[in-house]
């Protein structure tokens, strides 16, 4: 499938999702339009755009670049790693506290993704984690989570 086809499919799926949920809401009347009318119209339009995009892409697929799946999988690795590590940071933030979570997070990013040496990654992670904790927590007075140990 080419890029246009993929886009059309995304629009179509989003439109169907929106349509299914919005028709469960009240449409109201023309005098008092309900909460379901506007999202239903948008979802319907999105479905049309999705169908047109998907069908049109299939018709024009000759000469259009297809998505090279092997290349796409290889290029997907760094962003996927970043997403996974970031997810881990978000899930551990409340329990571990910001200082610990951010330092670990930075270490993993710098070592695993940026490919710095382990000792440099530790140093940079400690420096950046502490500096960001100080800047946001103390200078800007943002209430950063302290974790279950509540050490700082």
């Amino acid at each position, binding site marked *: 499938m080419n*890029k246009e086809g*993929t*886009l059309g499919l*995304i*629009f179509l799926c*989003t439109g169907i999702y*929106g349509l299914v*949920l*919005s028709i469960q*809401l*009240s449409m*109201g*009347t*023309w*005098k*008092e*339009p*309900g*909460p*379901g009318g*506007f*999202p239903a119209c*948008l*979802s319907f*339009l*999105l479905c049309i*755009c*999705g169908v*047109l*995009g998907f069908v049109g892409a299939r018709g024009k697929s000759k000469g259009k670049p297809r998505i090279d799946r092997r290349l*796409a999988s290889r290029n997907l690795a*760094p*962003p996927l790693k*970043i*997403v996974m590590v*970031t*997810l881990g*940071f*978000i899930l551990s*933030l*409340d329990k571990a506290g*910001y200082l610990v979570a*951010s330092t670990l*997070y*930075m270490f993993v*990013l*710098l070592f695993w*993704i*940026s*490919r*710095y040496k382990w000792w440099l990654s530790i140093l*940079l992670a400690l420096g*950046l984690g502490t500096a*960001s904790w100080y800047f*946001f927590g103390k200078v*800007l*007075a*943002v*209430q*950063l989570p302290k974790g279950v140990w509540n050490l700082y």
Partner: protein
Amino acid sequence: MDVLSDCLNGFRIALSLNNLYLCFIGCLWGSIVGVLPGIGPTAGITLLIPVTFGLHPTGAIIMLAGIYYGAMYGGSTTSILMKIPGEAASVVTCIDGYQMTLKGRGGAALFISAWGSWIGGTLSIVGLMFLTPVLADFGTNFGPPEMFGIYLMALILLGSLGREFFKTMPMIIMGMLIGTVGVDAISGVFRFTHGNKDLFDGFGLLPIAMGSLGIGEILSTTGESMVTIVHKIKFRELLPTREELRASVGPIFRGSGLGFIIGFLPGAAHVFSSFASYVLEKRLAKRPKEFGTGRIEGVAGPETANNAATGSAMIPFLGLGVPTGTATAVIMIALLIHGVQPGPLLISEHPDVFWGFVASMYIGNLILLILNLPLVGIFVNLIRIPSRILFPIIILICLVGTYSINFNTFDLFVLLGFGVFGYVFKKLECDIAPLILAVLIGPPLEMAFRQSLMRSAGSFSIFFEKPIALVLIISSGLLLAWNIFRGLRPGKASWEK
């Protein structure tokens, strides 16, 4: 005379030590952001929004706007010296700017670029100062039908001026759909929340913007490296010759006018204006074939135009509350967080915010003129910072910044989710910026539509009885039809070609 006395009052506010400092920080950060490829002015503004939470709204908008026009100055530095555009509006400057550097005239190109930017920026602020109150006065007479017409026109124009209409319009529709998540302001019913209390107020605008523009951009560019051949410029080489100065005058003033007019258009106005100015100068030149070999006109015009566009882009945003680009959309998000609603009532309800901001733009443009030329060596060396150390810092700033809004980890999931969203759409060659604008404009558009129908007891004639609403809706319809017709015509090349 009222405008001048209000402006003087604005200078009194802008020249306070605190606001001067914030203006300087904004301009400096904007110049840095402009130099670093991959971080555009919008991402630069979103990164600094959390820093503004403890500030007065006047100080916040002064700093954030400083980033916006500062990035236009900074973007030209690497375009001219390294043929690497710092941001999209400086792409066209690479053509002749870099050629001038190769000929040993890079300093002169930087000088003319800085002066042209200052003149274009200053003239557009004069326009902003006089036109915004007029537009705001006009806007106070607008009711829901007129506002519906304006929002509809803005979205259709955004779609028309996007890369491809049939990709941009669905993104706009999707953005409006995302904007419906949360409690419906009229009926109080929850829409698309699935019982999740964190979604009762909808998706946060800041996580959406930071995620799709900041995180999305990082996910897309991770691993890319830059060739960093830096041409060094000596201070004495900054001065242009008399001939170069004479040749720049016309392009600078034409660029100012063209940039100011194009700045009103939704979408990437500062990008369009720089390209339009280049095309215009090439058409007017006695020897157009020399463009691309290092003509000063190819630098003076575009750089002036993109700075002139930043001033006029603020006019619909401040006067009517309609952001026309992602940078103004993000500044609007920041103002909303501070409890200031841009629109027809901004000048009357918050005159200190508006006039302090206008005055600070004059000061900021002057700061940038003074800052950019002597510090060009430092700015250019910033590009040597490896992206593999920059991206973790930027992600962390995005995460902490988002967390500091509501101290809720759900916002971080939204940030990450929209980051993935932005990455996916970038890989599919689909611009995410219209979606963000639509998330912002969609809810007031729906509100205006429903209020119009409620006022008219369900009759659509209300949209045709008001002349302004009628003109806007018909124009939007014609523009939509034209775009559909143009897109469906067989064998038609895209408008970019």
